[in-house]
């Protein structure tokens, strides 16, 4: 037996350590399609209850949209279930290339390559386009998948302070002796809901001959006037060299991701990116669903407009109720509680009130920055938001944090 008792005990000790530290994650089973109203079993074995979902990445409410579901069914009928091959052997259908062209048109780039997920896109892109003679300069708060991709690449690694363009400029000056420079950032930062200043970043890129890479996973489909993403919001469409994004959030919420940008960089990924070369791509059924998502989004901005209104309504309601919020203008609205236990207790109390919103605390966010991250959807109706506001206010009163400052909450509950 290779998995000896000693080995088992070792792992049990590690898992118990996670539980003792309050870092053990548990899934909650949802017994319904993803939507504003969901049916949840929590804790495991408990009876299923109907709750309002305030923490999905389903920004445009398209995860269970009838037209998307219908398109997926048709995809199954027309192109089958799976490909049983990587792209370059016999795993590419006409619809894969059609989706790549659709994404290119939507994002305003030169070309696109699909990946099984955006995690895979970020894992593969750096190694495919850079060498040890180059440098990657990343914002210090970029997503974990970018960090993993950076680690897999032989180029020099450096960072700049979050959103600090003066600091980035210092770094670009310092690294002028490298063959190529790549600046790396999230478009919208998922934990705080703030936006990268891409216009300033592009100007620095032009001044110091640096490429810009943006992970726009929390922006594609709804940020910017027509939902193209953070580059549209910042007025730099066509000037971002690489955009990585996901189809697992606003764009239907199933699976898949892509690298979209300069033709040569996309081609380098097609030749060298390992998650593309050694893994099947997005299943046909999902590709057809995503194509329908783009058809919906390119015919009307109604859904992103509704999302914008919903997010403003929710933010205003929470502010008037007296919560401390992170500043921003995206549908990610963190309610700051600062203390990890308070965040967990608050989430549990909300669940009792029929609201599903998860607490985030160290190490996912920095120490003393625990929070409930709320995420608004175009699938929310005003009655959902009013009901959720009522519950947040009731629980806020219970813990006596309404109208209290950061310091007052910390003084009472600790860091």
């Amino acid at each position, binding site marked *: 037996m290779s998995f000896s008792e000693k080995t088992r005990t070792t792992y049990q000790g590690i898992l118990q350590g996670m539980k003792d530290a309050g870092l053990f994650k548990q899934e909650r089973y949802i017994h319904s399609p993803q939507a504003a109203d969901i049916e949840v079993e929590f804790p495991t074995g408990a009876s299923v209850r109907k709750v309002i979902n305030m923490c999905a990445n389903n920004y445009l409410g398209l995860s269970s949209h009838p037209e998307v579901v219908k398109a997926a069914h048709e995809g199954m009928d027309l192109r089958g279930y799976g490909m049983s091959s990587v792209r370059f052997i016999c795993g590419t259908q006409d619809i894969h290339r059609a989706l790549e062209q659709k994404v290119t048109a939507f994002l305003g780039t030169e070309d696109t390559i699909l990946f099984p997920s955006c995690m895979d896109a970020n894992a593969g892109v750096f190694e495919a386009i850079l060498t040890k003679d180059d440098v990657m300069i990343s914002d210090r708060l970029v997503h974990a998948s970018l960090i993993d991709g950076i680690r897999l690449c032989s180029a*020099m690694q450096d*960072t700049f302070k979050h959103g600090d363009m003066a600091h980035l400029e210092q770094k670009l000056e310092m690294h002028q002796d490298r063959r190529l420079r790549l600046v790396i950032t999230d478009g919208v930062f998922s934990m705080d809901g703030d936006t990268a200043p891409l216009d300033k970043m592009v100007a620095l890129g032009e001044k110091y001959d640096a490429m810009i890479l943006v992970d726009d996973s929390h922006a594609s489909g709804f940020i910017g006037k027509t939902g193209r993403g953070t580059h549209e919001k910042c007025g730099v469409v066509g000037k971002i060299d690489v955009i990585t994004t996901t189809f697992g959030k606003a764009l239907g919420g199933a699976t898949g991701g892509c690298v979209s940008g300069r033709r040569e960089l996309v081609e380098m990924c097609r030749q060298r990116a390992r998650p593309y070369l050694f893994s099947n791509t997005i299943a046909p059924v999902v590709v057809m669903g995503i194509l329908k998502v783009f058809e919906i989004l390119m015919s009307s901005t109604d859904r992103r407009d509704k999302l914008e209104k919903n997010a403003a309504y929710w933010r205003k309601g929470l502010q008037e109720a007296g919560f401390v919020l992170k500043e921003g203008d995206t549908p990610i609205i963190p309610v700051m509680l600062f203390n990890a236990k308070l965040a967990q207790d608050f989430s549990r109390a909300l669940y009792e009130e029929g609201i599903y919103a998860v607490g985030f605390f160290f190490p996912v966010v920095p120490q003393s920055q625990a929070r409930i991250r709320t995420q608004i959807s175009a699938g929310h109706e005003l009655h959902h938001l009013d009901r959720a506001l009522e519950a947040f206010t009731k629980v806020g009163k219970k813990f006596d944090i309404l109208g209290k400052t950061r310091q007052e909450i910390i003084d009472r509950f600790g860091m």
Partner: protein
Amino acid sequence: MADDVKDIILKYVTAEYLEDGADPIGFDTPLISGGIVDSFSMVSLKRFLENKYKISIPDDQATPEAFDSVDKIAVLVRKFAQS
């Protein structure tokens, strides 16, 4: 080499890595093992030292241990400044 090497390094590390309002650090504060400087960010510090003191620190000597406090970094700088 001037005696203010440690002061210069401390000033650089404070400006480069500490967030506004963070507790001040000392010469012996653990930088990498203490989570103040992450491995991605070490390269800036190495390049700063090399440019400032006109030295070259081989990659195999630029270890997380050797960079773990201002005191230790100053030892490294002095070693290569003399060689």
